């Protein structure tokens, strides 16, 4: 083995050994993304193993107590999309206010007597109160539609052979992806891996700044090592550490949370590698442009949080406004998250990995060039 190769190996091995012996780094880099991804994944639908749709908790108050109102209440109770609770008006109002119920409907007194006439335009329409949680305003429209459906069905029942007016079609729902089944954990593990590996990249950059403060950088430069060797070995070490983290995090995602690489495994590996290189060059750039350790860590952490937020690591980018979905496509984090999604739950083929890989590597080259041009080689 040549002297240069031995030196390169020593530099890389040193960084990896330090990482593996630093329990704090291990916890932050490996355990934290798993815990946070598990939490977000659970919120966004978990492993998607249930065929039934989750029910919306609602309340209903019957002030009329007529045959029609009782029939409507009974119909709401049996609706598969609702978890209906019969309550006094004040209690219903309180539970909606505190967020325990999404919405509640109050059937007024005289409802049963006036609704059939109102349907034919012979009486005034009764006023039905609907309480809803303003943080989930879409519930108002959904619940209003469901109530209308049930009232119409019960009001028209005497006129239509006892069955009442019903929706004149059936709805066959299908979750569409080329993957086996949507898994909420797949996206959250992609997002959190991206976030925490970029944090690790910051740590790698800060470590280089610390090396200047402790005299280690002087010692390294006293050895017969080229600049390419010194910086290249750091990129290699950080890339290797990032790949280790990704391997462990995705192993847990697969074996514990049921995430599947339903697309191309090679594509997944390519995206992982390209992203690991991106994290490494991000760290290098931070070391090149950074000032004091504390200030650099603060600014870098803030920047990374913005990048991962806009990259769709916290919530899927399709929930963004249209303009933001387009604008965020410039960010490498967006391509990384979308790339991991594509290779896992979307189940897309190898060729769809090429563009994310190209974009991630292009950003890596840019970061590396900035680092090389701004690096203070002679400073301690």
């Amino acid at each position, binding site marked *: 083995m040549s002297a240069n190769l031995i*030196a390169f190996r020593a530099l890389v091995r040193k960084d990896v050994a330090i990482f593996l012996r630093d329990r704090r780094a291990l916890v932050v880099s490996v355990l934290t993304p798993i815990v946070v991804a598990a939490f977000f994944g659970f919120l966004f639908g978990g492993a998607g193993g249930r065929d039934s749709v989750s029910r919306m908790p609602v309340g209903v108050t019957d002030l009329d107590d007529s045959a029609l109102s009782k029939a409507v209440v009974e119909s709401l109770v049996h609706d598969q999309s609702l978890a209906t609770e019969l309550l006094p008006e004040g209690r219903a109002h309180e539970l909606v206010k505190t967020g325990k119920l999404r919405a509640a409907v109050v059937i007024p007194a005289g409802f049963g007597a006036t609704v059939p006439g109102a349907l034919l335009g012979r009486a005034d329409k009764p006023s039905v109160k609907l309480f809803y949680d303003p943080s989930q305003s879409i519930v108002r429209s959904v619940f209003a539609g469901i109530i209308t459906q049930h009232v119409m069905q019960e009001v028209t029942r005497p006129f239509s052979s006892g069955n009442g007016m019903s929706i004149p079609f059936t709805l066959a729902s299908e979750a569409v992806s080329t993957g086996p089944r949507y898994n909420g954990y797949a996206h959250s593990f992609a997002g959190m891996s991206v976030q925490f590996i970029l944090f690790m990249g910051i740590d790698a950059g800060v470590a280089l700044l610390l090396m200047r403060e402790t005299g280690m950088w*002087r010692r390294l430069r006293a*050895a017969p090592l080229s600049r390419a060797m010194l910086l290249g070995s750091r990129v290699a070490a950080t890339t290797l550490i990032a790949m280790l983290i990704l391997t462990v995090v995705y192993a847990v995602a697969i074996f514990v949370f049921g995430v599947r690489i339903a697309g191309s495994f090679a594509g997944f590996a390519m995206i992982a590698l390209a992203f690991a290189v991106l994290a490494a060059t991000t760290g290098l750039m931070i070391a090149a442009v950074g000032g004091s350790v504390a200030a650099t860590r603060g600014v870098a952490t803030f920047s990374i949080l913005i990048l991962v937020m806009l990259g769709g690591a916290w919530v899927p980018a399709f929930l963004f406004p249209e303009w933001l979905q387009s604008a965020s496509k410039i960010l490498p984090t967006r391509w990384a998250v979308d790339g991991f999604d594509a290779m896992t739950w979307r189940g897309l083929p190898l060729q769809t990995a090429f563009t994310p890989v190209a974009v991630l590597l292009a950003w890596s080259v840019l970061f590396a060039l900035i680092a090389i041009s701004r690096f203070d080689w002679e400073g301690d």
Partner: protein
Amino acid sequence: MQLVAERLQKNYGPITAVADVSFAAAPGEVLGLLGPNGAGKSTTISMLAGLMRPDGGRVLIDGISLGTGADPTKRRLGLVTQEIALIDELPARMNLEFFGGLYGLAGRPLADRIAAALELTSLADRAADSPKEFSGGMRRRLNIACALLHEPQILLLDEPTVGVDPQSRNAIFDTIELLAGEGRTMVYTTHYMEEVERLCDRVVIIDHGRVLADDTLAGLLASAPVANTLTLKYDLSPDGAALQEIRNLPGVIRVDLAGPELSVAATDLGTAAPRVLERLAARGFSCQELTSRRANLEDVFLALTGRTLRDT
């Protein structure tokens, strides 16, 4: 192996850190490099170690010009930095493996040299421990061991004893003397006069980026404008006429009076002391107490730079 600094210059923008520094260190010689803060000492060491390229002049190692980066000539140099550059997360042995690896050492040769370096620095029984468990002196010794693995023929030691206990300091001195005895060339910077007096064969004093003096310790004391000092205490302060007579004596450089205490600086204490006592006695002044002090490196440094060694 000879180390030559030849008219070294280095500027940081408009500031000249090193204006013109030249000296040479021969094999087996320990050269003390002294200078106040901001004198250009650290920049000079950086150029000697191949950490930075001089703006003018060059560093020669056995006649070969030293470069920066991957220049293989750097293999002949070892640098012991003022900061303790160790990896606290890794055991002492892994630290040594790392620094040996930087110079292309691996396998059996590396293991042998690690064993030798640990033995030399008396750390063989602590090889498996982390440096953060070490005392300051042990950390300094490990810092030196890391610089010795590739067996450099020239060793640059930048204040290698800062913050260590006397026992460890002596152990470091022994190591340095042993290495010098093996014929290695050493450049040593320190703020401790006694270290220079014990270790250094020759002293180079720099200030404002220039060499002010380059000689053996004895040569510096003989040639520099410094004096031995005679301090005399009298019941009555000598008068102006008496002081003038003392000033006119041959070999007397300076006379200062502070109350009843008279301080006489002279080139040769043996000649000056009896004459001073005799003249003052003749004028009726009776000496109650007499002390003398020989000039030392501290005085030379003060005379040349205007500052004391420890103030730097």
